[in-house]
């Protein structure tokens, strides 16, 4: 027998590791997030990752399914008044908050009013048309609107529809986020900033049969490679936003599963067409023909392939081509260099030059470089300016840019992807686009509840805005989730938020 010293050196190390790793409980679902969430108060919260935690912590009045249909959650049914200015909700009976308080119509009224009135509330704009709330009876509540507002139901499927315990909220004031009390399948247990958020199963949950874990932990790990390494080493069961170039390899491994869900948001290029004087100083901001030529010089599929490893669905609108509100009257233009050159000639510009601002995110930088190379064929001279996100946002807000690579995480109702971006003087209208006709149509689309009629209005908006091109839409990224192959029941909801209810770990 030969003596192998390394064997004896490794033995205690292996034992030590086995001991330290064996403590993980089989009943805990361990989720890796790409960022650390902000405050855990649905009224004040602003971040996308915060919504992932909320989906286990705070139930909402409504939820959405894989096809963006609105489903009942805390509200079991709804009814609009004939003039569309009142929405009556029936509240689910027998629901309690994590502190044992009853969730009834009065609690719903408290929450809607809190969303509207708490200083610093991020929900105020989402619920702006709600003028007052009436409690009809213990389980019925009516939201009275100042004007018809079709996206209201969709707003109630997100943080604006989340209900927190009135007693706990009143007691904690604006510190509620450090110990949130809601009515979701899991209750808040602990948070160590930048390290973990721990939730524990809520024994009195109204739908407890759908909950199969005792605990959920959320760990922020910013680096996608390290997040994946944690999944592969068995430290995590689920990771969000894996890197697109890791998908192919991971899919070959039967121990893991990958989910890809087309986002409800988009990746686009915002063009300064009227935000500041700078809009008039470059041909792209000045002339819609130059913008059309720029769009025609782009090969969207090529961009998706090179930048996103094909993990994106190409599109030319604020909703994906698979969305029921996609305007088929404005089809996606194909790359046409000759036509682009002809348009530039018509516009009297031979070699249009402009600066494309991008954030430091790696995919945004890749996108800018590919666009630079692609549009050169038509004669464009694109200069790239890479700027840290906070600074770029400030510059965009001041109109100190010519074109800006900007993505939007999306909202279930198309209104959330267009109103604030294309309405005159709206907060997200970095392009500085303003058209009285478009504004009138945007307001009409908010007032119209009939989906068929609303779609007709949206088609008119699309025809107008996509001709003016304040934003050139490129593609809709896939949410890429990777998880333990034994995890069953993962639902691919387009908002990119994992629902833990219904998830089960096979033995």
């Amino acid at each position, binding site marked *: 027998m030969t003596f192998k010293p390394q064997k004896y050196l490794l033995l205690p190390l292996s034992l030590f590791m086995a001991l330290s790793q064996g403590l993980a409980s089989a009943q805990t679902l361990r989720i890796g997030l790409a960022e650390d969430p902000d405050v855990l108060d649905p009224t004040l919260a602003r971040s996308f990752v915060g919504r992932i935690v909320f989906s286990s912590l705070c139930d909402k009045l409504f939820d959405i399914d894989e096809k963006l249909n609105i489903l009942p959650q805390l509200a079991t049914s709804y009814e609009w008044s004939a003039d569309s200015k009142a929405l009556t909700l029936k509240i689910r009976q027998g629901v309690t908050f994590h502190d044992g308080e009853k969730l009834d119509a009065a609690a719903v009224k408290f929450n809607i009013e809190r969303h509207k009135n708490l200083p610093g509330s991020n929900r105020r704009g989402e619920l702006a048309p709600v003028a007052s709330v009436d409690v009809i009876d213990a389980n019925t509540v009516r939201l009275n609107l100042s004007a018809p507002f079709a996206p209201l139901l969709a707003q109630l499927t997100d943080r604006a529809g989340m209900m927190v315990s009135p007693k706990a909220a009143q007691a904690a004031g604006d510190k509620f986020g450090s110990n949130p009390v809601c009515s979701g399948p899991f209750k808040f247990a602990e948070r160590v900033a930048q390290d973990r958020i721990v939730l524990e199963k809520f024994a009195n949950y109204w739908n407890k049969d759908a909950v199969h874990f005792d605990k959920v932990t959320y760990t922020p790990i910013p680096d996608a490679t*390290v997040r994946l390494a944690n999944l592969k080493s068995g430290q995590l069961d689920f990771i969000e936003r894996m890197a697109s170039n890791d998908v192919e390899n991971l899919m070959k491994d039967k121990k893991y599963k990958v989910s890809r869900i087309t986002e409800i948001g988009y990746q686009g290029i915002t063009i300064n067409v009227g935000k500041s004087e700078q809009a008039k100083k470059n041909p792209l901001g000045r002339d819609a023909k130059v913008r059309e030529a720029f769009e025609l010089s782009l090969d969207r599929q090529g961009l998706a392939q090179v930048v996103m490893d094909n993990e994106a669905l190409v599109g030319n609108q604020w909703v994906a081509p698979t969305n029921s509100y996609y305007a088929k009257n404005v089809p996606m233009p194909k790359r046409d260099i000759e036509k682009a050159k002809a348009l530039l000639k018509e516009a009297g510009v031979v070699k249009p030059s402009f600066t494309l601002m991008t954030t430091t995110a790696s995919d945004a930088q890749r996108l800018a470089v590919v666009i630079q190379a692609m549009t050169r064929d038509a004669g464009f001279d694109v200069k790239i300016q890479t700027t840290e996100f906070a*600074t770029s946002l400030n510059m965009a807000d001041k109109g100190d840019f010519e074109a800006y690579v900007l993505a939007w995480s999306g909202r279930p109702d198309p209104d959330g992807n267009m109103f604030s971006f294309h309405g005159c003087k709206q907060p997200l209208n970095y392009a500085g686009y303003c058209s009285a006709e478009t504004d009138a149509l945007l307001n009409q689309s908010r007032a119209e509840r009939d989906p068929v009629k609303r779609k007709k209005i949206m088609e008119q908006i699309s025809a107008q805005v996509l001709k003016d091109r304040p934003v050139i839409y490129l593609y809709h990224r896939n949410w890429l989730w990777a998880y333990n192959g034994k995890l069953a029941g993962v639902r691919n909801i387009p908002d990119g938020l994992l629902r833990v209810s219904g998830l089960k770990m096979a033995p």
Partner: protein
Amino acid sequence: MTSYLVKRLLSVLPTLLLVSMLIFGLQQLLPGDPAKILAGEEQDPNVVAYLTAKLHLDEPLPVRYGYWIAGVVQGDLGESVRTQLPVLSLILQKLPVTAELAFLAMCVAIVIGIPAGIASAVGRGTVWDYAANVFALWGLSTPNFWLGILMIMLFSVHLGWLPASGFVSPKEDLLGNLASMAMPAFVLGNAIAAVLMRHTRSAMLQVMQSDYVRTARAKGLDERTVILKHALRNALTPIITLGALEFGTLLSGAVLTEQVFTIPGFGKLILDAVFNRDYAVVQGVVLFTATTYIMLNLMADMAYFWVNPRLRK
């Protein structure tokens, strides 16, 4: 000595005041409106206005500084606007993590760096010397994040021995804590070990040529005693100074290593706070670190006093 101590303590106060002004002033040079960053994706004008008022961003710089320093004097470093957590509790939460990581990294650096430096100096021109120099070059030129990811791939993904990232409190599980700290401590310690090795080598080479070492040898002392007892003791002085400086740097947070291994220490706290323009957190952490530095410096000066009797006169 007492009057010296009092003088030094009194000089700390204006230094800290100046540091607080610098921290506050320099941060204002960062581009971007904090209220807009903190307002999130929606950019609701009401929220931006609320945050502007809450953070006193619409007031002149000296007034804003006054609000902040008044709180600091009363022990209130403010709260993180992003997470609503008090800055002081964030600091106290992160301090043990950073201190432990710094301590373990220094242990790794000392255990590797000093023996390698001695071996290199003693065996100058031999294979040991070349090996130690190659190690030093490797340690100095290997980026921490790259080495970190390679180690994760090997020890976590491939071999499954160590957790890929995260921090386990020693109060919860001591073994788990050491397992979670092993790789980040090695990555950080490795780079410092290279610096220590180079300094130990040059200090030892210098000392070994001095007269007293020759005398020790002439007296017939064995080589081991000459090197470890006579040469190393004198060579250690500059190495200790360097080690203390490196330790101080580690205490202010190792941004990249903490980011790769998701260690919730000062580095990660301050990095996230800068990107999110969470001013109260940045100011609080930098002021705390600066105070620690100044106090450590003061303690070092006091220690010289104690060690060197001539200074007491």
